[in-house]
Structure formats: C-alpha cells, structure tokens
C-alpha cells in the first residue's frame, strides 16, 4: 500500500480518536470554580500520538505479512525457540527440573505476599489447563467456566461449615460435583456450536452466580461464607505464613499432576477424538466417534479441574462470596487459553503466569497498569493470533517402513 494512502488513513484514525476522547481529554469541569476548562493542547497530543501509533502498527503489520509470505506458518512454528528447546526429551526434563527447583525455592526468598500471588497464578495455570480441554482441544466455547469453580468452592465452604468436613475429604467431592455439573450443562448444549454454545454457557455461569447470590438459606447470599478451614497437615495447626507456603506447595503438586494428566489425555485416543471434534464435527462422527459421549466427557473433565481449584480457592482465602465468581473470571481463564495458543499445554502455562503476574508487577505503573495490560493483550492477538505457543502435533518415526518406533 502506498505511503500517502496510509498517511491519509492514519489522519482519519487520529481525528476519530480525538473525537472519541474529547469529553475525557479536552473538557474538564472544575466544580469548585464552576467553570469548564478547555484543554485544547490535549487534543493535539492525542492526535499526534494516535497518528504515530497508527503508522507504527501498520509498519509492523506489513513487515509481519511480508515475512509470512516468504515462509509458511507451520515451519515458523516448528522452528520457534521453545519448540526447539523441548524437542529433545533430555533438554525438556532438564528445563522442567530447573523450573521446579526454582518453584520449590521460591517461598524462601520472597515475602508471603509474593508467595500468595504466585499461588494464585498457579491456580490459574490449572484452571487454564482445565478449560483448555473444553475450549482448546474439544473446541467448545465455554463462557461459563467459572460456574464449576464456584461449585467447587461452595461445596467445600458449605460442607466445612455445616459438617466440619476437611479439605482433603472435600477435594474429590468438589471435583466430582463440578464434573456432574459439567454433564448437566453438557446435555442441553450438545446440539449447539460456536456462538450459540457461548451464549448458553454464559447464561449458565450467570445462573449459578445468581442462585448463590439470592438463595440466602443455602449459600448465605452476597455476604458469603467465612471462617473456612485451611487445609490440614496431619492434624497440625499452621500459622498464617506457614499455611500460605503449604498451600503454595500444594498448588505446585496439583499443577504437576494436572500437567501430567492433561498431557497424557492429549496424546490418547480420547484426546485425538476431541481435536477431531474441534476440527470437523460431521467428519468426526462419520469416522465413528460418538459426538455426545466425547463432548460430555470434555465438559465434565474440564469442570472437574475447576471444581478442584474451587476447593483450593475456598481453603486459601477462608472466605468466599458470589462476587468472586463473575463473568470476568471466565473471561480471564478463557483469555489464558486463547493467549497461550488453543490446545497447547506449555502455552497455557506461560499465558496464565503472564496474565496473572503481569498486572501485579505492573503496579509500578499505578493507574495505567490495566491500560498497559489491555494494550499488551491487543498487541499479542494482532501479532500472534495463534497464541504464544502454537500447538505442535506429535510426530512418529518409522524405521524402514515397518515397525514404528515412537518419539514424543
């Protein structure tokens, strides 16, 4: 495209932005002196800033397109740094071991506040991996994932409050209940796809939250449930700092188990069926895959992890109320899956860490942190729509046309 044309488009864009931000940037009402101040210089800043940004983005986009034209996308993905790093099993285990060592040492050289933040990030890693089964692998756009998280959290809160059940006893119950809710949601939406599925699941999430908010006798309504027990350690009473570290280590354990299981699921008959279902539902059925069963299993397995993490959440904060389970949570978890690269386990882990830790460490930017966060997300999706780590498929090596030897 010609430079002149781009300049013209940039000019229009900046004028439009000036118009959009006019009430915010230019007009200032001073309630004390009862005058309106017109800060015209701001309009100029916005115009120039937008114009420059527009040129920069256009330039980057064109460079990216030019590069995409010369090499195919797949080759670029295969060549990516992380893929090369984990290409050999030895390097993969070495890297994993090093990361694990850092993770285990982490609480010793950071404050309990930071450990707590890290625990939250790990929880989102597991939530992301769970939703990744539903959205990334099976391709079912679920906007109500937080409902299962709430089911897990409330099952622990209520069972603990009424019957004094402990964390470890409720952990499987919470996961199981969430899985059952996954099937309950799955049945009515079996026939739906894409947008329709998204809307129904969105509604489901809101229904669960509204029930929790309004059914006071059951859930104590908006005021929530407090004094939930922290997880026990062989009957030991832990002080606050020790409990934070204990939950952190629990989350590391849960995350490792989750990664192990999701990894195996992905590389199994069931995982392949999910991906086939995502790729083409009709062809998938014509290949003999039971669509209903495969979808229901995806929903319930995904929900299971949300339930488990719900229990951990209730135990960690010792207080829950419906405000923790809004659509925003679902959106963040979905953003983790999409940003990570649909179906890619490493991508989801990275994305969860970035999305949860970035706002924390951007606090230095004070009031602009959410703006910066949003800008990073938008830039990410513009320049790398396939996500941080594009999913690579397992390859098989065949020796002399027969007797396949496998490699992962």
């Amino acid at each position, binding site marked *: 495209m010609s430079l002149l044309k781009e300049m013209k488009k940039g000019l229009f864009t900046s004028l439009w932005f000036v118009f959009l931000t006019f009430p915010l940037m230019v007009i200032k009402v001073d309630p004390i002196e009862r005058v309106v101040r017109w800060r015209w210089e701001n309009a100029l800043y916005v115009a120039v800033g937008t114009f420059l940004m527009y040129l920069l983005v256009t330039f980057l986009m064109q460079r990216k397109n030019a590069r995409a034209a010369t090499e195919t996308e797949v080759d670029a993905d295969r060549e990516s740094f992380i893929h090369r790093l984990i290409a050999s099993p030895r390097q993969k285990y070495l890297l994993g071991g090093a990361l694990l060592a850092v993770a285990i040492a982490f609480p010793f050289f950071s404050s309990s506040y930071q450990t707590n933040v890290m625990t939250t990030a790990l929880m989102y890693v597991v939530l992301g991996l769970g939703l990744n089964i539903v959205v990334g692998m099976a391709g079912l756009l679920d906007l109500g994932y937080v409902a299962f998280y709430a089911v897990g959290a409330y099952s622990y809160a209520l069972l603990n409050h009424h019957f004094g059940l402990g964390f470890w006893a409720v952990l499987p119950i919470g996961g199981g209940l969430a899985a059952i809710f996954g099937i309950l949601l799955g049945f009515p939406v079996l026939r739906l796809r894409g947008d329709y599925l998204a809307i129904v699941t969105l509604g489901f999430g809101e229904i669960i939250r509204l029930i929790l908010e309004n059914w006071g006798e059951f859930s104590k309504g908006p005021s929530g449930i407090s004094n939930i027990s922290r997880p026990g350690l062989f009957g030991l009473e832990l002080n606050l700092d020790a409990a934070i570290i204990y939950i952190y280590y629990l989350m590391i354990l849960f995350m490792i188990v989750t990664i192990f299981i999701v990894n195996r699921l992905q590389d199994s008959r069931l995982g392949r069926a999910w991906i086939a279902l995502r790729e083409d539902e009709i*062809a998938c059925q014509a290949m003999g895959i039971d669509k209903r069963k495969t979808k229901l299993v995806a929903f319930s397995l995904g929900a299971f992890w949300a339930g488990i993490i719900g229990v951990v959440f209730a135990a960690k904060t010792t207080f829950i109320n419906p405000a923790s389970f809004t659509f925003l949570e679902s959106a963040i978890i979905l953003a983790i899956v999409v940003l990570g690269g649909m179906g890619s386990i490493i991508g989801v882990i990275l994305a969860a860490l970035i999305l949860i830790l970035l706002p924390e460490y951007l606090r230095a930017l004070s009031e602009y942190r959410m703006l910066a966060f949003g800008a990073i997300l938008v830039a990410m999706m513009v320049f790398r729509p396939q996500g941080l780590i594009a999913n690579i498929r397992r390859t098989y090596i065949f020796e002399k046309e027969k007797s396949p030897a496998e490699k992962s």
Partner: protein
Amino acid sequence: MMDTPILKISGLTMDFGGIRALNRLDLDVHAGEIVALIGPNGAGKTTFFNCLTGIYAPTAGEIILTPPQGGKSISLKGLKPNQVTEKGLARTFQNIRLFSQMTVLENVMIGRHCRTRAFILGAIFRNAATRREEREIVEMSYAILEKVGLAGVANEFAKNLSYGAQRRLEIARALATEPFLLLLDEPAAGMNPQETQELDRLIREISDDGLSILLIEHDMKLVMSLSDRIFVMDYGKKIAQGVPSEIRSNPAVIKAYLGEEVDA
C-alpha cells in the same frame, strides 16, 4: 442374481421443505461389487450418501445392511453417523473434510477410534492394554498410509497436502474404520489425469481386498472402467440402471447429461 445384497435400499425419499431431493429410490449393492452412482449436479447423489450414513434422516424408505459372510441384516434407519460407521459402512466427502490441524497419520488414527476402546483411565495410566492398543493403532494406520501412497508424508499437517493427496487421505481414513462397504463421493474431482489413474488402481486394490464400493463420480472414463453396475439419477429419481455398456447407449441417460460425452 447372487445371494442377498449387502446393501438394499428401497423407496428412499428425502424432502427438504418443499424440495424432494430423493424420490423413492431403490438400489442394491452385492458383496465384492463396484457400483457407480452417476447423475447431473444436484441430482441428489450426495444427499443419498448423507441419508445412508445417518447425517440426514430420510423422510421415507428402508435401508438394510447385511454384512457379508452370514451376518445378520440390520436397518440403518435412525442410526447416528458413528453407529453406521460401526456397522461397517464408511464414506468420503465430496467437499474434503479432513482434520486439517492434525497430521496425516493422526487423521487415519481417528478412523481407528470405533474399533478401539481405551478411555479416560487408560489414557491417564497407560496400562499395558492401552499401550498395545496405541501401538496397533499406529501400525495399522501407517500400513494404510503405505497402501494409499502417503506414508512419506505421515507427519505433515493434512492441510499441507495436495488436492489429490487429500482425497486419498480421505479414503485412507475411511479404510481405517474397517468397513465392508466403502462410499466414495466424487473421489476424482480436481485430480489430474495421472492422479485419476492412480486412483483407479487404488480403488481396484481396495476392491480386491474384498470390500464393496459404491462410487459417485463424474469422470465417465473412470466410472466405465471400474464399475460392475451403474445407477443413474436425475432430479432425485433413478432413471436407469445396468452394466456400463447398457448405460452408455441408454437414451434417457444421454438426455439427462444433455449431450455430454457419455462414452469412454
């Protein structure tokens, strides 16, 4: 005629609102046969396949499948697509429907799904039975790829294959479900003459392995060379049936094709 047909269709009718896409169609396929179904575009051939494989629910009519070697007859009506495939009937699609983000090998491995069992626990614990099953899936899928000549690109993404190769992959995927009757919907569409010739050979090989084949195709040369019998449709109706030489000289067929070259 021979013994009971493995596929017997009688009075099959399919309405879409006011459109009658299939009108009381009768058709039969016997064990080991290659049967072709031809007709102008929009005649209802693909709709016919969709009714057979459970993708559409036919308005009326009966579909009876009888597995060769003394199997029991079953009605396919009301079965879901995956159940039809389990009964031994597999198909390819006219508009290629591969799993484009999966590798060539994985596409074929999907076909093994209905003949294997490992589930959640098997996937997680990978016990001996599951490992054996996975190995069998891989080995068999690879053998099928060798058969259709795609073994060299087993680890490529399906979307990166050439058009002709994608059509052959569709056939490989269908074969992996171990059908005794294979439905091919315009397998030569978009192929160059050389690819078509390779396809001709592949279909013969599949037939020699004992499978019966029902083939929709516009390439008359291919149809005439392969088919034991031909059915001709127009506007949802059967207008002719017979061996290739009969069809070639049938006036109704020539008229339906409106002067198109029918002879090979």
